[in-house]
């Protein structure tokens, strides 16, 4: 079993959460699952870290939450993206693409 350290991931947890929520309202557990799903199980959020991230985004007004009942009839807090959050996601995606493009360019330089 390889123990090699993965390279630095040049992204942000906030961007991943925003992306996951752009596909629909979710509770915290669902956000982690969706990130794993949309990244084809390549990215897995450290579960505990997800919540401070969600609270931070809510403070910034990019995400809003409300208590509701989950599929298994349990009370759960659901998060959804606000309009400001959608705009922020676009900005984050553009920044990410810019960085990825620049890195690829640098790597391909001979």
């Amino acid at each position: 079993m390889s123990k090699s350290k993965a390279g630095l991931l040049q992204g942000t947890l906030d961007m991943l959460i925003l992306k996951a929520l752009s596909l629909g309202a979710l509770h915290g557990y669902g956000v982690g699952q969706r990130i794993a799903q949309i990244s084809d199980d390549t990215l897995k959020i450290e579960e505990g870290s997800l919540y401070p991230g969600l609270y931070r985004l809510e403070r910034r007004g990019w995400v809003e939450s409300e208590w509701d009942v989950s599929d298994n009839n349990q009370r759960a807090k659901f998060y959804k993206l606000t309009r400001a959050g959608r705009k922020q996601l676009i900005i984050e995606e553009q920044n990410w693409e810019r960085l990825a493009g620049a890195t690829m360019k640098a790597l391909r330089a001979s």
Partner: protein
Amino acid sequence: MSRIKATVQFLHAWRHPYEIAREVETELRFHVEMRTRANIEGGMRPDQAQLAARQSFGDFDRVKAKCCEISRTLPFDSTLLKMAMYITIAILAGAAALWAVNMPHHSFTGVLWQLVAIVVLARAFVVGRRAISTKQFAEDRASVFVTDVERFRKDKGLPSDVCEAHSVGIAAHDEQGRTPVERMFKSE
């Protein structure tokens, strides 16, 4: 609109810290329960599943404390507010000093009021400092695990030490609200 909502939530969190702590705990427990269920569906024994869920969640109390702390921070840049608070306290302190000088020194009531003024000012300072926390946008490190796809699939649902070996730090927004990517392009 969402900013206003965030401000209302901040005021609520500040007034009802225990209620917020209970809500955070309910939310986090829900997560652990969901993970436990998934582990059981993945073939684990209930006790194993619960243990694995707790392990994969990390330090429950630390996460809870962090969430409560974020709930009690202002949803906007507090620099101006902080400056206004210090100016107000300075003016009040100046007024109290002026008043104390003009009070008859031998008056018991005068000394008592001076003491009350000092206590109120000290309390206002402490409360103000706590409410206007500068930690709000402090860089907070979180971890995302980049795993080998095949191995992750194989280990999915099982507690593993893979995460530790493969964890990489990613940073959230800094005090200016910039992402690490934006910071890299700061010269533009």
